[in-house]
């Protein structure tokens, strides 16, 4: 049956296609290959998620015909299926969106390589999500990270190189920490399969090696997630990467690491252990709240809009990890829903900013005076995206914050709810600044004439903006799948 091969297809086909692109290196051919492959992965992921939902049993794939736990297992359950759909969807959309932007921002000689790296990055991200093997996840993490460093370094600005290098150093430290943690867990359990590890770890949880392993894994992944205060690589990387790359990374890269963190905290170490015997969730909660406020405050003072949105991402990641720290069903649902919602709205905002960058040539706030009048579609989309970030009812931002607030109330943490409300005001301040400059200021005398960004860019961004509103009303997909996935997580190893 072909569907039995789908788990391997979504990882292997992008890898083959990446190698093909690197040989062909013709821009149009590479773009077409990438688009077809990304769309194929999306269809495959959606089919697998549908399959898992319908039959209620995870799909398990024996890589190379070797049975787990000795062999590498690819495993699709509700949670990983949900993330697979998200990553492949965003990858497809950014390819449609990014054609013009890539032409404007990336030198012709390396555009073929760009698509090769993009596919590799997608292969790595999908691989992290789909694999059921701790070390295999590390390998895919390296594939995605190394290609990501390359993608960021392709930015037009010279500072892109420094940003990429900074990310390389921090990312490598994170990956090293992760692999040290996996090594410790491997020495005491003798297995790398995550499900098997969870079973064997259960009687060993209070050993120093298990606790040290947990600490290494959590810190390593926090670096990849850019959880405050380990977020310092993120603003520059997002600000100086090519626009299409920023849209792709902001929507997928950190989300995939958050997925892995959830897997470890809830599946491998187990729900009860993580809460009752270690202070890890308290630590994550304090850091999440710090991220929300530090990120939002920093965003207010940014002159570069991409940097501003990047700091806002640091804050939004705080919301997602806050849901993990709440450790109850509504909180985790909020967290999972926000993974999807944030990807959609931040993806849309970065896409719109990419259009502005293409037309104006800069992303400085001071150059955007009066842009709202000449690029109404872009800026109107930006306003709707801002509403969503703010959490206005009827947008996706509201849905996730609602579940987070319920989760906080269930724990009796009413002050967390108050802080959530307060943080929305900060969003109003930094998004409001952009809207004020774009709509209520005149364009300076003698400014070059401007027109809207190319149709493909506007349309993709608008599909996402409309999705922000649609998914704000019809939550059956996001909340539906998230709630089922939470049951899987809270139930521990399945």
């Amino acid at each position, binding site marked *: 049956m072909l569907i039995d091969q789908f788990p391997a297809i979504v990882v292997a086909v992008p890898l083959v296609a*990446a*190698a093909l692109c690197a*040989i062909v290196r013709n821009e149009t051919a590479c773009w077409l290959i990438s688009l077809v492959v990304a769309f194929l992965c999306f269809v495959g992921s959606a089919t697998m998620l549908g399959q898992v939902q319908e039959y209620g049993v995870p799909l398990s794939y024996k890589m*190379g*015909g070797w049975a787990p736990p000795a062999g590498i297992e690819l495993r699709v359950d509700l949670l990983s299926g949900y993330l697979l759909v998200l990553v492949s969807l965003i990858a497809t959309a950014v390819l449609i969106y990014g054609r013009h932007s890539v032409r404007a921002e990336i030198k012709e000689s390396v555009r073929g390589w760009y698509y090769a790296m993009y596919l590799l990055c997608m292969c790595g991200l999908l691989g992290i999500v789909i694999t059921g093997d701790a070390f295999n996840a590390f390998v895919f993490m390296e594939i995605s990270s190394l290609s990501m460093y390359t993608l960021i370094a392709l930015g037009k600005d010279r500072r892109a190189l420094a940003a990429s290098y900074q990310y390389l150093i921090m990312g490598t430290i994170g990956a090293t920490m992760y692999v040290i943690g996996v090594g410790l867990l491997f020495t005491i359990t003798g297995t790398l399969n995550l499900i098997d590890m969870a079973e064997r770890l259960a009687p060993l949880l209070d050993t120093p090696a298990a606790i040290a392993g947990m600490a290494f894994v959590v810190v390593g992944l926090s670096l990849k997630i850019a959880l405050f205060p380990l977020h310092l690589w993120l603003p520059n990387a997002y600000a100086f990467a090519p626009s299409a790359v920023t849209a792709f990374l902001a929507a997928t890269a950190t989300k995939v690491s958050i997925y892995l963190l959830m897997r470890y905290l809830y599946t491998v170490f187990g729900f009860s252990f993580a809460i009752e015997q270690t202070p890890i969730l308290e630590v994550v909660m304090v850091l999440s709240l710090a991220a929300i406020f530090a990120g939002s405050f920093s965003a207010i003072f940014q002159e570069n809009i991409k940097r501003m949105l990047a700091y806002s991402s640091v804050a939004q990641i705080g919301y997602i990890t806050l849901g993990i720290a709440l450790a109850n069903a509504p909180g985790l649902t909020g967290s999972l829903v926000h993974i999807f919602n944030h990807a959609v709205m931040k993806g849309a905002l970065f896409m719109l900013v990419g259009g502005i960058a293409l037309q104006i040539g800069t992303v400085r706030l001071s150059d955007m005076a009066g842009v709202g009048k000449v690029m109404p579609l872009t800026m109107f989309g930006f306003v709707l995206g801002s509403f969503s970030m703010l959490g206005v009812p009827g947008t996706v931002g509201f849905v996730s914050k609602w579940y987070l607030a319920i989760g906080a109330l269930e724990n009796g943490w009413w002050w967390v709810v108050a802080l959530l409300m307060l943080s929305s005001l900060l969003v109003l301040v930094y998004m409001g600044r952009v809207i004020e400059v774009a709509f209520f200021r005149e364009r300076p005398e003698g400014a070059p004439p401007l027109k809207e960004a190319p149709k493909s860019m506007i349309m993709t961004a608008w599909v996402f903006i409309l999705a922000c509103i649609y998914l704000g009303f019809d939550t059956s997909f996001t909340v539906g799948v998230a709630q089922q996935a939470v049951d899987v997580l809270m139930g521990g190893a399945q």
Partner: protein
Amino acid sequence: MRGHLILRVVSKLLIPFLLLFALYVQFHGDYGPGGGFQAGVIVAAAFVLYALIFGLRATQKVIPPALLEVAVPLGVLIYAGVGVVTWGLGGNFLDYGMLDSHDPSHGQHLGILLVEAGVLLTVSSTMLLIFYTFAGRGR
């Protein structure tokens, strides 16, 4: 490069044995420690030694950078191609046992041989390409 007679003679003597040793490490990988990664680095080291003694230009005449840029993804294609073939034969991805219809263990041998060949190609060309990039700076 004139002069440095000893360096030139010794390296010319050494390079064939380096390449041979690389092949030994490569094929030893089927049964024990060794394989494409280690062998790839040794192959690259042989060419780096040649470049250090006889110059970058002479080395690039033998192996032009454009060739390496194709060889790097080609190795990946050989590796993944084996997986695609096992798909075609009705097995799981990289299920080498499928490669031989009579005896799966022969298929395992063949599979690992091909995959390691892909690794050798990619690793050696990547190492050499990194060397070219650094050595070629400022030219």
